[in-house]
């Protein structure tokens, strides 16, 4: 027995010694996680980029005021986010690509350990729900996202879906980031918008159209403007602001009709618009699928004026019309491409493009078999400010995730914060009764024959321009019953 007991004792002692040594070694190698109060960014605490994080991903996180990449902090609970958009159907082009943008930004945050808020790093997780641009499905999705996943923030398209989900999301105090500030309303304190610059860009469409048209004196008559798009809350509201701007710019409105969302044949619609002989045809908020078919009809029926719209998908449009036609009609819209050379070689936009291409581009691991669009950044544009607000508000609540009230209040208190399109600030009280809209520079695009895609032609400041025309605009919006106090 003694002969057997001796080796056992030796093995036991060796195991204890090895354990003690490994603990000591581990303690010496591992950086001490700072407490919230002790969090610093001293060079001693920085250990280089976290594994897997690229330089481009660091750049796309650069809007965050307090991310302290490379510094370890305690890990908080996962923060769940929702993506409640059309992922199929004619409106999918405004939803699906946005999920790519959100995914790459969220993954970059998670590679740093999570979003640093109040001295903890919170991993982010996104849950998607396809509402097919149907209001009842959007409400079903909102319930699932909130009740099953406890999401605190929802990226969405808005319009009918915003109206359907607002009471439920207000009750649960969940931020709903719509693409259109026309959804903002004092009765919907958690509906935010404006990163997407609609309806500002629709209103600027009028300005750009006027820029390329001959003057009234040359024409010997008033310039004429026609607007047609599908009949939905978003179109009615945005259309009212756009018509207001057109009136303010001196256009005569010759056509303003909304077609059913079930429309499959656009030939008679375009015939009806063209019968009014407009100098400008606005496709306004036409869903991506619809605008392609409308462009086709404009081309086939021989329209020769200026065409403006909120968002153009040229990759698809050019399967139906020649590029020369798109260029001849100017193809004015907004939602620039992040790979537009206008942004410069060293920019947030260029880095976003690089990360997107590495993940979703041709031959990439998740190749989406399409070009990057102007919607790929269009949803993350509000997610980033929400995270900025969380970091600022989190300073007052160390160790806890701040409430959405605190996040929105923190953002409103900032004179300026960075956005994808440039410096922004919270605004909107004038137009929508509540400061839940981000106001930032509005990039305007035209179709460019050489690039066979859109290119930025102007980067405009909305507020001073709007100040000059707002009396006329608001009168027109009121006429159509679309001011927030009329709904």
């Amino acid at each position, binding site marked *: 027995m003694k002969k057997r007991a001796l080796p056992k004792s030796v093995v036991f002692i060796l195991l204890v010694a090895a354990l003690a040594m490994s603990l000591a070694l581990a303690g010496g190698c591992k950086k001490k996680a700072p407490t919230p109060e002790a969090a610093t960014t001293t060079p001693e605490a920085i250990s280089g980029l976290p594994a897997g994080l690229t330089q481009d991903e660091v750049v796309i996180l650069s809007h965050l005021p307090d991310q302290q990449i490379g510094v370890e902090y305690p890990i908080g609970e996962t923060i769940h986010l929702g993506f409640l958009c059309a992922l*199929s159907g004619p409106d999918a082009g405004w939803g699906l690509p946005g999920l790519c943008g959100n995914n790459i930004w969220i993954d970059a945050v998670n590679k740093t350990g999570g979003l640093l808020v109040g001295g903890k790093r919170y991993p982010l997780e996104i849950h998607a729900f396809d509402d097919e641009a149907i209001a009842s499905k959007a409400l079903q999705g909102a319930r699932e996202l909130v009740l099953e996943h406890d999401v605190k923030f929802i990226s969405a398209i808005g319009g009918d879906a915003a109206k359907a989900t607002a009471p439920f999301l207000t009750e649960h105090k969940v931020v709903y980031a719509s693409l259109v500030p026309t959804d903002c309303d004092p009765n919907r304190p958690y509906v935010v918008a404006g990163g997407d610059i609609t309806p500002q860009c629709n209103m600027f469409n009028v300005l750009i159209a006027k820029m390329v048209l001959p003057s009234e004196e040359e024409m010997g008559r008033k310039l004429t403007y026609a607007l047609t798009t599908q009949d939905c809350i978003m179109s009615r509201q945005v259309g009212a602001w756009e018509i207001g701007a057109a009136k303010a710019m001196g256009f005569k409105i010759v056509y303003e009709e909304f077609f*059913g969302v079930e429309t499959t044949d656009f030939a*008679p*619609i375009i*015939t009806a618009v063209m*019968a009014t002989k407009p100098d400008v045809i606005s496709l306004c908020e036409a869903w991506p699928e619809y605008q392609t078919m409308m462009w086709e009809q404009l081309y086939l029926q021989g329209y020769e004026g200026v065409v403006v719209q909120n968002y153009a998908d040229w990759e698809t449009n050019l399967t*139906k019309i020649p590029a020369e036609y798109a260029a001849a009609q100017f193809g004015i819209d907004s939602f620039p491409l992040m790979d537009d050379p206008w942004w410069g070689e060293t920019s947030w936009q260029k880095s976003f493009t690089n990360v997107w291409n590495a993940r979703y581009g041709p031959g990439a691991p998740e190749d989406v078999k399409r070009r990057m669009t102007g919607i790929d950044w269009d949803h993350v544009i509000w997610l980033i400010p929400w995270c900025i607000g969380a970091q600022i508000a989190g300073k007052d609540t160390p160790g806890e995730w701040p409430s959405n009230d605190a996040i929105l209040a923190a953002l409103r208190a900032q004179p300026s914060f960075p956005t994808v399109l440039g410096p922004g600030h919270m605004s909107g009280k004038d137009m929508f009764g509540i400061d839940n809209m981000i106001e930032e520079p509005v990039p305007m695009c035209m179709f460019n024959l050489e690039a066979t895609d859109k290119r930025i032609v102007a980067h405009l400041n909305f507020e001073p321009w709007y100040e000059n025309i707002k009396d006329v605009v608001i009168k027109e919006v009121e006429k159509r019953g679309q001011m927030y106090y009329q709904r």
Partner: protein
Amino acid sequence: MTSQTLIQTIANAAAVSGMYALIAVGLTLAFGVMQMANLAHGHFFMAGAYTVYALYALNKWPFWLAVAAAVGIGAVIGLAVERGIFRPLRGDVVAGFIATAGLMFVFEVFMGEVWGWGYMRPVPSPYMRAVKFMGASVAFQRVIVIPFAIACIGGLMIFMRWFRLGRALRAVAQDPEAASIQGININRMTALAMAIAGALAGIAGGLMSTIYAVTPALGGHIILPALIVVVVGGMGSIGGVTLASIIMGFVNTFVTTLVDGVTAFMVSVAVMALVLAIRPQGLMGHVVT
């Protein structure tokens, strides 16, 4: 409405009438022979459209070869559906109705899972030009549907009247039992009817893949106007479908141009209700005794 707008609207309506006729003729043929409404007919159309997308848009086959393949695919699907659904359920109209409604979902989910749910699948126009006539301008892609519709309907009428197999089909449509006693193989005839109906849906889907948005929901969009046309024309009547296609094409296009699309749909349904009130068997249908 100016004269130019009127001519353009007539041209638009003529093109749409051709499209309706080509879609609905297969549906009415299948109904005539089997006395069952194939709700999945719009999804046969969708299968034709996806065939052209896959072969022409993705794999660069010549457009017409891809359309020919769509015809074959449509015929094969028609045969499979006849063998798998209509034959076992023969005589049970309600069961057939429910089964083909279920088949719609199967097709939709299948296409969505294979080709994706997201965007429409863009099928480039092989003829990116318009036909101009008296100031009107209509997409060449729409115009070519008209001769195809005439050829298909005319061919089908000749086949049904002058060919032995066609006459056998008519016999089965009129009285299956009597036809069977005369030695006509009912199974072969229903299979033939469904193959022809599937092929017609395939050619319609293939030709119109460049006109409509090719998505898994396409079949659902197509079947409703097709059913209205078949009901107005008379279930099982090829001549009735032709007449109804022209009426509904013109009604829809004119009301859309003058008012809007929603009103146009309401008027279409009102026309159907009116026809049913006056002639429950449809414009050229026969009363079943």
